[in-house]
């Protein structure tokens, strides 16, 4: 089946998310759609999947124009989509999820789950997925859930599969497996649109590449293009992906975490006897696939989560049982992994967000009263210093782009007197320009003799920033290694194989 998107334009108010985009997909082809966060890739795919209607342009299948009013139409036409956030129902079994909306029924009208199981088994065996049809989704690892999503599409006879940022949640090994699966699918005649911002993956599997920037197709480079060529096409200028760092001049052991155990509400040890020490002037990166206890670790250090056993010390002071305010006052800065949820108040202005943790006293407050003049002055200074691109300090935080929102958080945290900076996913969903800037700021903090912990699931980021790397797996630290460790070895550690 051949798919063609012809001159698609989609506007949201004054913003043109897709500007006259055209692309074609031949049968059995893997076509990568490369672009930064916010470039318009997801909008284009939602248009293709019938979730959005294009303002202009046409979708053609086998040269016939089609019109999708909803996902049902797109599916009926043979288009399957694996969303970035899986569309699976956690309490249902694999078989139930696969047949949902398209259920086989027995003679008396009951649900024929045996047929559903067979279907799952058949597809699963054909591509070597190893999925148990009766497993509940909530008990499956993320990689397996993704394969269930693929089975779901194939069960509906999808001839075209759209994979939206499929590797974000996978270990390097799982990513390799997915690449293998994609090649297998393509060989069997399924065409794939692969949406990503990761250059290495694009180089590995693509038959064809389309680069989108600010809603426009900017280039169709060859699959053998180098990473830096692809990066500069994606960003629109030369990008230096390497952060320059001075050699480490380490000082005192400022952050000491000893045998830390943190439980979730079902008594799972999300952080399981973790110990590490970070010195002044050094960056410890905590690597690992999402969901291995990193979030809980960061929240425990800040005092947001109850510590079951073990201890946390900052500059010799025991903070194990401290409140968040005490931890902040002890000199800890914290960049949360989800800025919209935990880092900012979207409906507050930038100036207000910049003083969120400073409402207790100077310089922002005098007694019970906010010092508005000081607030505005500091806001203007920080906007300047941290290159926050905004019309004014009174703009609401939610109106900023992801990168600028993150700069607000970084500015707030780094503008205090810090001893330790804990940054969780500091550049998730941020444009490349902002990534470079934030990385420079983190390294500057380290060079100024601060103790820095970054938690990141992006191996590139870990390798760019870390002096030492601790890899977390199922709540435990698999090992702490130096920054010259190979990608391959780190990948194995992320899968729980100790060095």
């Amino acid at each position: 089946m051949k798919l063609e998107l012809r001159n698609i334009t989609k506007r949201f108010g004054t913003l043109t998310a897709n500007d006259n985009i055209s692309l074609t997909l031949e049968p059995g082809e893997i076509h990568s759609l490369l672009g930064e966060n916010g470039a318009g890739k997801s909008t284009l795919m939602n248009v293709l999947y019938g979730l959005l209607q294009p303002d202009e342009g046409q979708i053609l299948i086998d040269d016939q124009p089609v019109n999708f009013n909803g996902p049902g139409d797109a599916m009926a036409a043979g288009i399957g989509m694996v969303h970035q956030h899986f569309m699976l129902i956690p309490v249902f079994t694999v078989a139930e999820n696969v047949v949902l909306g398209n259920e086989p029924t027995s003679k008396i009208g009951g649900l024929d789950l045996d047929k559903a199981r067979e279907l799952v088994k058949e597809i699963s065996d054909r591509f070597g997925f190893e999925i148990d049809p009766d497993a509940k989704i909530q008990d499956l690892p993320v990689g397996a859930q993704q394969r269930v999503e693929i089975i779901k599409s194939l069960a509906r006879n999808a001839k075209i599969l759209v994979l939206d940022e499929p590797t974000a949640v996978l270990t390097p090994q799982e990513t390799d497996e997915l690449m293998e699966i994609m090649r297998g699918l393509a060989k069997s005649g399924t065409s794939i649109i692969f949406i990503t911002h990761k250059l290495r993956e694009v180089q590995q599997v693509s038959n064809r590449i389309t680069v989108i920037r600010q809603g426009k197709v900017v280039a169709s480079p060859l699959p053998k293009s180098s990473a830096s060529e692809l990066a500069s096409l994606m960003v629109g200028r030369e990008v230096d992906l390497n952060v320059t760092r001075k050699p480490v001049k380490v000082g005192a052991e400022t952050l000491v975490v000893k045998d830390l155990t943190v439980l979730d509400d079902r008594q799972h040890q999300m952080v399981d006897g973790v110990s590490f020490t970070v010195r002044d002037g050094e960056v410890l990166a905590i690597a690992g696939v999402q969901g291995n206890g990193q979030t809980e670790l960061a929240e425990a250090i800040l005092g947001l989560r109850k510590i079951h056993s073990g201890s946390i010390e900052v500059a010799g002071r025991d903070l194990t049982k401290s409140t968040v305010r005490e931890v902040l006052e002890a000199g800890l800065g914290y960049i949360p992994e989800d800025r919209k949820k935990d880092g900012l108040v979207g409906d507050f202005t930038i100036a207000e967000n910049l003083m969120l943790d400073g409402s207790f006293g100077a310089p922002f407050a005098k007694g019970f009263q906010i010092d508005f003049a000081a607030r505005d002055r500091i806001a203007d200074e920080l906007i300047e210093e941290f290159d926050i691109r905004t019309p004014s300090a009174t703009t609401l935080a939610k109106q900023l782009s992801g990168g600028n929102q993150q700069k607000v958080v970084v500015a707030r945290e780094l503008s205090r007197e810090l001893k330790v900076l804990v940054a969780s996913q500091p550049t998730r969903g941020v444009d490349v320009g902002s990534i470079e800037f934030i990385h420079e700021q983190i390294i500057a903090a380290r060079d100024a003799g601060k103790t820095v912990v970054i938690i990141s699931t992006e191996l590139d980021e870990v390798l760019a920033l870390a002096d030492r790397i601790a890899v977390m797996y199922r709540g435990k630290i698999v090992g702490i290694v130096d920054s010259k460790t190979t990608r391959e070895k780190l990948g194995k550690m992320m899968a729980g194989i100790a060095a």
Partner: protein
Amino acid sequence: MSKIEVTPGMFSKLESKPTLKTPITLLLSALVVIAFFGFLGKPGDVSFVWSDKREAIQLPAFTVNSMLFCTVVGVVLLLIAAFSIYRSVHAKKTPVWLIAIFGFGVMMALLGWLATGAVQGVQMIFILSNTLVLAIPLILGGMAGVMSERVGVVNIAIEGQLLTGAFVSAVVGTMTGNLYVGMVAAMVAAGVLSMVLASLAIKYLVEQIIIGVLLNVLVIGITNFLHSAWLDNDSSHLNYPGTFDKIALPLLSDIPVLGQVLFNNRITVYLMFIIVPVLWFILFRTKLGLRARAVGEHPLAADTVGINVAKTRFWWVTLGGMVAGLGGAALTIGNVGSFGREMSAGQGFIALAVVILGRWQPIYVTLAALLFGFTIILRVWANQVSPGIPVDFITMVPYLVTLVAVAGFAGKVRPPAASGQPYIKG
């Protein structure tokens, strides 16, 4: 290719310390039974009457010394408690069925203690059949709750739906002289009320709790007004429907005890017998149910596989309202025989609690509703056999039993994930 997989669910679990909550509650309950109903109980005999005089097969009444009976029951309860302690020490849970048996034992001891010396004894058929009849509005209201919450709409308006059903069935039943017409009218009226809830909640995204509360207040106001301004003027022509005739099912109704309790009832009870299992079957064994549950758990996921979320929610809530309307009819033409002001008396809210207690599952919800039905009849009956005892205190006992039972349930109660959340198509 070796598969190495990572999931939050695969973190090692901390060995949980055995909780003694359940066994200690059981132990204390058993001791209370032995002490207060046994040793400090009432001297004299109690008889458990198992047969109605009209029945073909008569079972002999079981007469026993009250203190002895309660002590023996108490000792059995003590053994169960001991077993439960033994299991807890070995970090095992007490099985739910055992807790159920325990609860039944406590009830029997309570009944025996109350009826000591009473001439009529413990009339099991009277108690059980009234439990069933009084539970019908709760069960059907509960089904309405299950049907709407399973698709993700919180239905606080069950109270209003019951009251609507009660009012309309009485009035239409009287005016047409046909109770079946009254019953159907009740279902339609409550269904229409549900459509208001459904369309405001689904289409206009109004906060569901607020609409529910407003509908309740509205229905109370309207029915009160119509009752005093209209029905009271000529109640024999407007509010005197009477009740359905009891239908004794041939053969089945001759079974000792159960026959009289289950198979000699009004149509409303039999409809409940049909609705509950059918709803269970549809929810868990058909594609309709699978889709409904998907909508209630993860509407976006349901939408992406082509299920119409708004339509699914609308019809499930509406049909649920019709079932609640039938429950309202059971209050009037299924039991009392006329409409009284605010006669639903908070049963719609109890139905909400029953839905949670029954974990959004029709069969469990029915059992939970029966427990509440039992407390209603217990209040009436205790006053008859044992005048002067603090009835309010006695009616507390079944709730205490419920608490123990709920504590004994393994795991957490988890509502449908999208319950109460509007689905906004983006």
